């Protein structure tokens, strides 16, 4: 097989499973080490560079990093990456002096952003320090988008949201509250150099079945949550049915519990394992006494004398893959209120079609996945507005990418010219069998988040349920990280094929063997390499026998023993830093990463 090129930043980046999975490529192992050293402010600032909202995300992130975490493959449970982010945010010092600032001298370019959600805020975060004048138009009177209007305050305290949105707006963003953009045409006429659409996916899906319009006790989930946030709703009936079992449903049922709901059922069409809600959200809801009822498909609302009495469902039986179902019978469940949480849609009634912007057959604007530019040069989309509802971290990643495009566009550079990522690779050797990182494997189990007492948490709507890790939990959890960014870097010409590295490796990662096809080599290693998502490293032919050094990256715990047992330092442990490019800052090293 072909020798691996570890000089390509993508190779080692992929070994850092969490960072690779994070849409914004947050340098997870580095911030975890900073937390381990008590350097919370540095850990926070390192996070902030890539994900902009560490305090918010440390509580609410969808955490694609965690299922990707190598630790899960090693002992079954990923590192609590997300909750450690919150530790950094909670324990940091005053960071005012470290935040990016806008220069006094503006660069003369004006950018308009529609909506003050995470996508637009990320754009402003990247462009303000470059001297751009950024104007944000927001429908409501507060910033944050769905993070404010829809994520309940028992999951995300208002103070955290205010602090992190403030850090951006305080750079001097021209934020115009209560200013819904009602015409794209009108906005374009104002002569901005670029426009960014970060208006989200604001419309909750409806369920048009009999009885839908005969009562006012049926609510659209995202509108209902918004009404709670803005103080228009403060109670609900005792019996509540939530239709749908996604993330919105979880927030609706838990909010109902706090507004007077006693018998709350989340109604799912399909069996467990096929829900959209994250497992931890389901757990949290069930802890609060909410029933999750599977295999029920809604057929009609039961209205008597103009009042909602209940809802009728078909009970379904599914095949093994939950693809096909058949109806067993029908049941009626009594209820006082129904909340529909079956998804969100985009809506752009304010973009005049005469403008000639290209829309696809589902009414979505055609947006380039790399540049985020629409078919109109200078008009960019990002966040939920670009490709439909996703989550906060994706909105941030879109914002960074769109900011690069906007910067290019305003500087007369083609938006397709993307600054490449770079990398640093620095040996961690401090002496004989001595490394500058903690290479020992810590067998601690994943730490469990403590929650506010089940009675106390319902006393007020905004009591944050998760208490955060205490010092002891933090100290344990940080040591679970396997330091996947401390890479095993190999120099073939130094190897004398003594087998020391192969003999010592606890995870059977290494093999010296003759060349062949990768698929065939994968079968004849110290342990078969069965995870096709993980790379198999192959060296150039070794000097003494011409065989290859092979490493299955899948389960390496980055213990450094191979490098310690190597007599010639053919293996070395080297810290990989991905140098990410942002608007106006090409592949630069972070000032928060110690060498």
């Amino acid at each position, binding site marked *: 097989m072909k020798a691996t090129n570890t000089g390509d930043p993508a190779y080692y980046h992929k070994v850092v499973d969490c960072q690779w999975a994070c849409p914004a490529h947050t340098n997870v192992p580095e911030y975890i080490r900073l937390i381990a050293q008590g350097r919370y402010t540095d850990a926070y600032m390192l996070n902030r560079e890539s994900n902009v909202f560490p305090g918010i995300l440390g509580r609410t992130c969808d955490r694609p990093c965690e299922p990707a975490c190598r630790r899960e493959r090693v002992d079954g449970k990923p590192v609590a990456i997300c909750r450690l982010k919150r530790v950094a945010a909670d324990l940091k010092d005053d960071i005012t002096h470290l935040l990016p600032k806008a220069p006094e001298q503006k660069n003369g370019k004006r950018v308009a952003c529609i909506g003050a959600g995470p996508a637009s805020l990320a754009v402003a975060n990247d462009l303000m320090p470059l001297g751009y004048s950024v104007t944000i138009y927001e429908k409501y009177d507060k910033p944050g988008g769905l993070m404010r209007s829809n994520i309940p305050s028992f999951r995300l305290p208002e103070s955290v949201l205010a602090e992190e949105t403030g850090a951006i707006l305080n750079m001097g963003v021209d934020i115009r509250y209560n200013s819904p953009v009602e015409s794209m045409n009108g906005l374009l006429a104002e002569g901005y150099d670029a426009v960014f659409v970060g208006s989200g996916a604001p419309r909750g899906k409806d369920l048009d079945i009999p009885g839908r319009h005969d009562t006012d006790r049926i609510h659209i989930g995202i509108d209902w949550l918004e009404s709670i946030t803005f103080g228009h709703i403060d109670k609900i009936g005792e019996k509540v049915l939530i239709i749908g079992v996604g993330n919105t449903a979880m927030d609706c049922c838990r909010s109902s519990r706090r507004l007077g709901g006693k018998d709350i059922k989340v109604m799912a069409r399909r069996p467990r394992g096929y829900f959209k809600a994250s497992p931890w959200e389901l757990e949290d809801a069930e802890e609060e006494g909410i029933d999750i009822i599977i295999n029920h498909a809604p057929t009609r609302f039961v209205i008597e004398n103009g009042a909602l009495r209940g809802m009728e469902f078909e009970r379904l039986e599914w095949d093994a893959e939950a693809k096909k179902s058949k109806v067993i019978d029908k049941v009626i469940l009594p209820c006082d209120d129904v909340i529909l949480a079956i998804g969100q849609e985009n809506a752009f009634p304010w973009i005049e079609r005469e403008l000639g912007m290209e829309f696809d057959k589902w009414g979505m604007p055609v947006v380039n996945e790399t540049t985020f530019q629409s078919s109109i040069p200078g008009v960019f989309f990002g966040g939920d507005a670009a490709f439909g509802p996703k989550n906060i971290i994706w909105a941030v990643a879109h914002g960074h990418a769109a900011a690069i495009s906007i910067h290019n566009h305003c500087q007369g550079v083609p938006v397709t010219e993307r600054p490449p990522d770079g990398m640093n690779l620095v040996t961690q050797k401090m002496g004989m069998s001595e490394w500058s990182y903690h*290479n*020992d*494997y810590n067998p601690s189990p994943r730490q469990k988040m403590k929650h506010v007492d089940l009675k106390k948490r319902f006393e007020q709507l905004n009591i944050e349920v998760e208490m955060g890790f205490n010092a002891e939990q933090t100290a344990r959890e940080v040591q679970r990280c396997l330091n996947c960014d401390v890479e095993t870097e190999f120099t073939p010409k130094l190897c004398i094929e*003594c*087998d020391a590295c192969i003999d010592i490796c606890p*995870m059977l990662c290494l093999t010296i063997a003759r060349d062949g096809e990768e698929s065939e080599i994968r079968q004849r290693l110290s342990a078969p390499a069965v995870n096709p998502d993980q790379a198999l490293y192959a060296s150039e032919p070794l000097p003494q026998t011409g065989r290859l050094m092979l490493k299955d990256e899948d389960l390496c715990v980055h213990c450094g*023993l191979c490098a310690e*047992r190597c007599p010639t330092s053919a293996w070395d442990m080297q810290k990989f830093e991905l140098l990410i490019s942002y608007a106006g800052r090409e592949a630069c090293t972070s000032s928060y990463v110690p060498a």
Partner: protein
Amino acid sequence: MPSIAKPIAVHPSLHRNALGLTLRDYEGAMSTLCAGCGHDSITAAIIKALWELSIQPHMIAKMSGIGCSSKTPTYFVNGAHGFNSAHGRMAAIATGANAANRELTYIGISGDGDSLSIGLGHMCHAIRRNVKMLYVIENNGVYGLTKGQFSASADVGSRSKRGEPNRMAPIDPVMLALSIGATFVARSFSGDKEQLVPILKAAIAHRGFALVDVISPCVTFNDHNGSTKSYLYTRKHMQKATEADFVPPASEILATIGDVGTTTVTMHDGSVVRFTSVPKNYDPTDRRGVYDYLQEHANTGSVATGLLYLDESVADLHEMNQTPSTALARMPYDKLVPGTAALDELMEDFR
């Protein structure tokens, strides 16, 4: 010395042997030898062989003398018994231990210094007595532990790290063993586990004394250009005389017996060693033929490896002395020490 103990995390595909143990259960303490020492590779091969044979850890006795090589029993099978004897005395202590408890599996680890200088006499007599044990010489041509002086296995003309040539003729443990009636003689290389592991397994199954001489480069004092026991020199000069394949009892033997170049020898315990001789007409049961072959190769400077000689027909220490089949260690006290009357009766015989 590594900074940490080997992580307890294990690979999910790790197999279990007949006792339900994984390879990791046959490990010992972390090695304190120099990084890259051939001895550590031999340790890994021994771990593999013992695991594959499903030997109960507490039924193993690890015996050694003094030297880097003699330290290695600490680095395998934590749960085994062990005796770290005085320099060169391992063979004698192992003979005594084996006499007292024939039920254990004896793994003797020695060095070329330990066995061919100070311990030479003891080793020869253990061979003569055909003590049932695996006797490994981790052969690096130097006294590693005392910083690289030439040992008795150093070749004439091979140079020390400082450049001085060795002028004294070497003792080749393989030739020596053959000449004094050894019943199992093998040579291998620490850098070739594919060859070494089956040899070790066959040696453990052998009826009597099994000598395995393993070229094991001393990476610190004898892995340089003037050395004839370096990784590079050994790789360049290694000549395979046989390839041995160890088939445990009750397993099916796949090769057709009597094929050209294939010989099989049934071991005392029912297992089978299948040889594929690399040079034509090499017969590992013909002591004289093997001796001539080795002599010829020694003259051309090549290192012949493989399971070189095997004879399962010779009785071991216990069989020769017609000792009881129960280990003395497990014999009831009154039987083992029958008292004054029995002693008097015995003494009468000599009057």
